[in-house]
């Protein structure tokens, strides 16, 4: 009998780690060789990527299909303005705090939406996001329907603000990707995927289904809330209709479905596709959304595992492997 070993790393995963290191080095040195415009674009790309990865964590790994993640984008954006302008907290520190506030608000929200099962969870989260939007739009201190402007960053030089915003974005992006990867590789992540594949089977094996799903929901709210704060640190103007728009969740869903649901690589590929399409077809307005929607529907029908699933199945590669495999050393 040939000797065997159980391992997780493969040649592809070592290549993946190397590629990730190169990408990170490029991102960290970008201010030295790129322009302000490319930095602004990257902030946008990173925000989309984190939104998508958080939605992927919910739907692809925890089986929680939320159509209401825009609630946390909006809450994050408004928390940033309130913390920085009204309470005098440093606006860049406020991005992390906005994530914490979103996570805190996710607890009572979960108490409501976790009463829904399956498909009704999707509509329930959407309804609750509307409650947040209408609640903010009816609050005088938050500027009602017109929203608020982030004034705390006005004293800063524009270059300084853009540079620090960029590094906050890179930090958030790295934290989100590494955090999700570490989370999924942990004992907790294993339980999570067991719940997704069969909640009752996982239950009988001692996985606490409710606590596992709640933890993921709160974690995703943290990442999404911090992203909302990052977006409005970049845009400087927050209004209820834009911040709580379903389009945030729609973008995340399209990115994940096209790139590959339930894979860590999928949202990265999907964000690249999404952004390329937007840059080339953005001028066609609604046609671009029609194309994206049709692509996502088509992907779901023809290849539900998305672009990365196509690659992974064809060549059996995992850049960021979660599963262990038995290899022969004969």
């Amino acid at each position: 009998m040939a000797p065997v070993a159980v391992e997780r790393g493969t040649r592809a995963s070592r290549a993946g780690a190397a590629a990730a290191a190169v990408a990170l080095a490029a991102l960290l040195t970008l201010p030295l060789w790129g322009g302000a415009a490319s930095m602004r674009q990257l902030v946008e790309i990173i925000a989309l990527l984190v939104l998508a990865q958080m939605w992927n964590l919910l739907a692809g790994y925890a089986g929680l299909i939320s159509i209401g993640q825009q609630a946390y984008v909006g809450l994050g954006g408004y928390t940033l303005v309130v913390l920085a302008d009204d309470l005098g907290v440093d606006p860049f520190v406020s991005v992390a705090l906005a994530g914490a506030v979103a996570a805190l608000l996710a607890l009572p929200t979960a108490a409501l939406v976790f009463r829904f099962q399956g498909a009704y969870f999707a509509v329930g989260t959407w309804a609750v996001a509307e409650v947040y939007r209408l609640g903010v739009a009816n609050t005088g201190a938050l500027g009602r329907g017109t929203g608020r402007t982030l004034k705390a960053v006005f004293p800063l030089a524009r270059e300084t603000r853009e540079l620090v915003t960029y590094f906050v974005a890179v930090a958030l992006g790295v934290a989100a990707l590494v955090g999700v990867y570490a989370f999924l590789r942990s004992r907790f992540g294993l339980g999570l995927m067991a719940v997704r594949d069969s909640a009752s089977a996982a239950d009988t094996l001692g996985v606490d289904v409710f606590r596992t799903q709640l933890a993921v929901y709160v974690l995703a709210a943290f990442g999404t809330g911090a992203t909302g704060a990052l977006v409005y640190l970049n845009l400087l103007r927050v209004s209820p209709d834009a911040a709580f728009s379903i389009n945030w969740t729609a973008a995340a869903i399209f990115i994940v479905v096209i790139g590959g649901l339930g894979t860590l690589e999928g949202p990265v590929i999907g964000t690249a596709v999404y952004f390329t399409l937007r840059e080339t077809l953005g001028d066609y307005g609604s046609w671009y959304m029609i194309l994206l929607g049709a692509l996502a529907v088509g992907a779901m029908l023809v290849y539900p595992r998305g672009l990365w699933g196509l690659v992974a199945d064809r060549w059996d590669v995992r850049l960021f492997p979660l599963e262990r495999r038995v290899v022969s050393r004969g």
Partner: protein
Amino acid sequence: MAWVDTVLQGLLLGGLYALFATGLSLIFGVMRIVNLAHGDFSILAAFGAVALVDALGWNPLLALAAVVPAMALAGWLLQRVVLNRLLGQGILPPVLVTFGLSIVIQNALLEAFSADSRRLDPGGLDTASLALGAGLAVGWFSLVTLLVAVAVLVGLQLFIGRTRLGRALRASADDPGTAALMGIDDRRLYALAMAVSLGIVAVAGIFLGVRTTFSFSSGPDRLLFAFEAVIIGGLGSLWGTLVGGCILGVAQTTGARLSPGWGILTGHLVFLAVLLLRPHGLFARPRRSD
């Protein structure tokens, strides 16, 4: 008296919401999926009526005769060509596919009819009202809407309860595997259910267009109101849907009376309160656990 009027208008509005909710409830009852494009299909139907009114000068109520069968056919095709291919893969694919369709329909309507708000004019019926005395009056059209909602619910109940096809639908909803062993073709039944669902929601969309203005982005709110009416009434209860719609309608008109910006928000809050206090709704039928 003003408050009595507010409640009365809310109850009548509930008739319209019940029309929106019935098809959603039917589809969930039969297939356990939620059609996230449900509201957008109603707005698509309303714009279909707009096109007929603009091109041929028809009365919008006459347009019902053309739009409702067209939407039923669209529902049949949607199920046959798209959703039936996703059966047995869990709830995620149908939820995401119908969400994608929702975005596609909204943007296609924006492209075809611009972002302008539209309204359907049925030639005076929308403004005529019936005086009840004591300063109260109800619009004829609201009353007709409520009566149509009741008629649709009675019709659906007779169809599901008394006919062979209805029995097959119930069997398939309870246990698709055993139903299939008895020779029931569930794919054909699902297509029929989706046709009925979109036919009803086409009526709701055109009635909405007569009652108030609508635009390409009016769909998602309709889906949420329909969903809330279903949850308030209780899953699986057809008449609960009507009561749920009326409670939602009264909550909205009462809230709007307190402060103009609070109408829809009050409706949502009443929905959340029901969810907290009676998670299974007011009239839920006991059902097998699944």
